[in-house]
């Protein structure tokens, strides 16, 4: 019973990692850029939701929506302002710009909101059901369900819609996709919009689980989600989901059975092992450089 309880908790954290990892992996797939500011989008999303719930007294679902809309616009804007001008520069310039954007967001929010941790209201309170004597909260159940729904919607979008197919075409061969008349800028904007929207959803559920919001909250979460994306194979959508879930469960089981201080060590240990034995990630394709 206890094991199933830990597993469900792991699944919850894992779904959050997966939602964030999807943003990393999709942006990498399309723009070949590791968007290091992605973690900070989560932080922004959390602050926006907090303001909407706390100061404006909005319902948490409305707050979630406001946060998603804000982050989508922010994500697209960041790409336009910071990354687009560097599209034809070396990858290193874009990478450094992404780190710069991350620092900018952190410090901007530090300036506006100070470094004090702010409590996030307990939004999805109550017990959904119990496993033995262990309660599973409504929050846990919602996080897992909504993540699953979003992943399904994303899968449908990427596999079945015209824009989704165009996104896959661009991620495979940008120049050839352009020859088909696909507008690369639009595709990249859509990708950033989706990634940032998912990050905003993740931010609300993350804040409901660990209810403290501060300007650096996105750093560790972003890093872990990035690792989840690499673990699953960066560029692969199922890989990001698998990587996120594996990390969440590994973390939860370590916390439950070994020691909570070791949880991060185990997670990073898994990454090292995967990189040693399958550097392209669990579901990553072994892409050969064409000459």
């Amino acid at each position, binding site marked *: 019973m206890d094991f199933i309880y830990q597993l469900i908790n792991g699944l919850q954290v894992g779904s959050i990692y997966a939602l964030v990892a999807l943003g990393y992996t999709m942006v990498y797939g399309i723009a070949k850029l590791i968007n290091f500011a992605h973690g900070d989008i989560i932080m922004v999303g959390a602050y926006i939701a907090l303001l909407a719930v706390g100061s404006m007294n909005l319902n948490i679902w409305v707050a979630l929506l406001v946060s998603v809309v804000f982050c989508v616009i922010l994500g697209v804007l960041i790409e336009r302002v910071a990354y687009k001008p560097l599209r034809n520069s070396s990858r290193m310039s874009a990478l450094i710009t992404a780190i710069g954007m991350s620092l900018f967001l952190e410090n901007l929010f530090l300036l506006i909101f100070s470094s004090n941790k702010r409590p996030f209201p307990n939004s999805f309170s109550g017990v959904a059901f119990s496993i033995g004597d262990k309660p599973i909260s409504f929050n846990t159940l919602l996080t897992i369900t909504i993540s699953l729904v979003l992943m399904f919607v994303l899968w449908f979008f990427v596999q079945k819609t015209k824009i989704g*197919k165009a996104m896959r075409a661009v991620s495979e061969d940008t120049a050839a996709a352009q*020859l*088909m*008349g696909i507008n690369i800028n639009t595709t990249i904007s859509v990708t950033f919009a989706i990634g940032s929207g998912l990050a905003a959803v993740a931010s609300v559920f993350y804040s409901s689980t660990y209810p403290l919001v501060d300007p650096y909250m996105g750093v560790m979460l972003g890093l872990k989600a990035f690792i989840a994306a690499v673990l699953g194979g960066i560029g692969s959508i199922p890989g990001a989901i698998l990587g996120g879930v594996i990390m969440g469960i590994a973390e939860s089981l370590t916390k439950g059975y070994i020691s909570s201080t070791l949880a991060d060590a185990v997670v990073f240990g898994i990454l090292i092992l995967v990189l040693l034995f399958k550097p392209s990630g669990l579901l990553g394709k072994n892409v050969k450089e064409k000459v």
Partner: protein
Amino acid sequence: MLKVENLEVYYGSIHAIHGVNFEVKQGEIVTLIGANGAGKTTILQTITGMIKSKAGEITFLEKNLKTIEPHRILQLGLAHVPEGRRIFSGLTVMENLQMGAYIRNDGKAAIDADYERVFTTFPRLKERKSQLAGTLSGGEQQMLAISRAIMAKPKMMLLDEPSMGLSPILVQEIFKIVKDVNASGVTVLLVEQNANMALSIADRAYVLETGHIVKEGSAQELKNDSAIQKAYLGS
């Protein structure tokens, strides 16, 4: 229909294309032949905006292509089947064709009719419709690449070495397809190393050597030209 004037292209400090001039008229098959590295692919890539030129004019149907964003060029009716086929190997055959029809907005019925037409011409693509394109053989991939361009309903098609890496029988088949495409009303600019085959289906030809056009004329003339025979036709 397509006019290239005084085209100059550089790769960094390397001067790849030196003041190239040529023209393709409506309904023609024109071929650009030359050895490896002569600049054939570079010229095609410059036409569709994959590479920027340093100087010169490229006009297609009276429009200056250099001022048009690359993804809008197909909308004007100019399709480019790139070197090495460049099909989307992680997409299915059907999805590849759908990408070919990406820009079309003349209604589902018209597009579906064109899928059918492509499948009648290439029954093997129909059989493998839901297979990933990367699993196709080289010849099938080339057929898919051409079909994908056909799906855009272009007025003119640029073909970059469609015979590359194919067996002699398949080469024959591909060249027959190119002729059929042309017969259906699509103007063709064909870049080839296989000069013999290219000259046998072309109306006119240009010979490219290290970034210069060194000879031009009707395909028949060039086929009988002794220097061309020696250099490109191996006789």
